[in-house]
């Protein structure tokens, strides 16, 4: 993990996107971008695939729905059947509202937890941050020039061409 990383700070979203696009065309390995708000196009530059979070939401939703229906059926028809106004033991339509709410609840909580896990976020975590201003008004692009000194120079030049505000390097 002791890789040389060159990172540039930009003042504008457009410059970040331009630099990221050029870096991708020239075949540099973009480690990450940092921005105060979601920059549309940064995901493409990072080569990120469609997130699979919707599948997680579907999974937890179906799980919640199934469990809620099964539990209500088991309680009302098997464990202790009680005659309420002559309704059948398994009064399925009456179980719909609770099952629906449990579907939404399980799906929402499940997908939020999945997100925390895949992003490795947890309360009190201390994350390395290239600059404290990336949560305010700065955009940062991190590139690994893969060792060679000439590579590092080319990356620096690329950043300069795209109006970089500052170009720095670190090991990470």
């Amino acid at each position: 993990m002791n890789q040389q990383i060159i990172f540039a700070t930009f003042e504008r979203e457009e410059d970040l996107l331009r630099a990221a696009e050029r870096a991708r065309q020239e075949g540099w390995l973009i480690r990450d971008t940092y921005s105060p708000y979601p920059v549309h196009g940064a995901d493409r530059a990072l080569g990120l695939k469609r997130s699979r979070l919707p599948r997680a939401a579907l999974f937890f939703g179906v799980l919640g729905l199934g469990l809620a229906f099964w539990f209500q059926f088991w309680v009302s028809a098997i464990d202790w059947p009680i005659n309420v106004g002559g309704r059948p033991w398994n009064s399925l339509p009456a179980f719909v509202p609770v099952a629906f709410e449990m579907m939404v609840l399980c799906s929402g909580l499940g997908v939020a937890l999945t997100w925390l896990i895949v992003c490795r976020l947890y309360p009190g975590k201390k994350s390395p941050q290239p600059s404290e201003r990336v949560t305010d008004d700065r955009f940062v692009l991190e590139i690994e020039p893969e060792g060679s000194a000439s590579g590092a120079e080319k990356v620096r030049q690329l950043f300069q061409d795209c109006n970089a505000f500052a170009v720095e390097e670190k090991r990470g």
Partner: protein
Amino acid sequence: MEEKLAQPDPPWILGNKSLTQVTSDVCAPLERRGTMLWWSAFLVSSCFLALGIVAVTYQMLTGIGTWGLNRTVGWAFDITNFVFWIGIGHAGTLISAILLLFRQKWRNSINRSAEAMTIFAVICAGLFPVIHMGRAWLFYWMVPYPNERGSLWINFRSPLVWDFFAISTYFLISLVFWYIGLVPDLATLRDRTRPGLYRRFLSFFSLGWNGSGRTWHRYEILYLLLAGLATPLVVSVHSVVSTDFAASLLPGWHTTLFPPYFVTGAIFSGLAMVLTLMLIARKVMHLEDYITPRHVNSMTKLVLATGSLVGLAYLTEVFTALYSGNTFEHANLVNRIGGPLAWGYWLMVACNVLVPQLFWLPRIRANLGVVFLLSILINLGMWFERFIIIVTSLERDFLPSSWADYAPTSIEIATLLGSFGLFFTCFLLFCRFLPMIAIAEVKTILVRPKEEAKS
């Protein structure tokens, strides 16, 4: 007319803000000492809260015989307040979830505080059924858990149980949605706060957020998913609340109109409450550039639309009662519009149907003082709507010998005032300690100089 059309709309955020100006403007109220205005508002609302605590403690110790209920009118003030508060919450979810899916950019200035309003309103709402149980300390009996009573389960066929699940789900999903939206802003705040207790608090809750592109990518998907999940909640929660009434056999309650009627009423009342809060907050917190007259204009149009739907629901109710040919439905209608609580019915019609029609006039929509006044009238009208629905259906029973009247006692009024105290105390604390405008979301809708970017 053509000249008017040629004029472009003003941007959603005024003052040509830079990114860092947005951060400092939104964070400013959190970083300076509380103003006199804030402290006086806080003092007043916590006094109301204290009054509520005293009233609730007294009725817990004495029993709910302290209320003005009788054998005929067994539900009144308490359930009215419950339905009123839960309805207020719905506009917050509409603004944060449905308007997000419809890509209405103007919601970005108000969604944070509207969601906070939802959460506090649901807390206020949830308290009332708990108090109504009489033995509030046994409230956990609502949860289906294996118990020593032979495992006697709750009755899943009862709308009251559906209600419990709907409200709990609504509260938890709203809370998660609000918190996930807050995470990036907590990180922004963390990075500009001096080391100390507040910074430690922020860094605990900001989950190590560092603005990474990979995290943002998944964050946006998660946010959309949660919006998609919250959207059916807007419709389902108040529909379930309405089944508390619609699933009974009482004239005036037992109608299929109830779920849509309750949902539009809820959104209508909530939007009015959002307007009331926004118009105060933009002045007190100096956020005039972020919550602009154009935002208020859009909100009032929504109020007009939902208010007209509510008017349609009132008409449908009258039509159905007349068309049904049912003696009891007729009698109930006559009692509503001409009985002992007729003044309440007509107050409700005036505030909910006639008042919002004023918003057809652009001059009224642009006059923020008038909008504020009208929003309060709508809040009042919507409280009366629930009171009229509940009490007028109960007070005139099937048997004239059991007819009765209802009037609230001082304890019930104190509990209502206490719930307002709780709501405003929570909201004021929120304004003081958390960013009340979604900083990251507002930054995405700033108008940036485009020509410069191309060069």
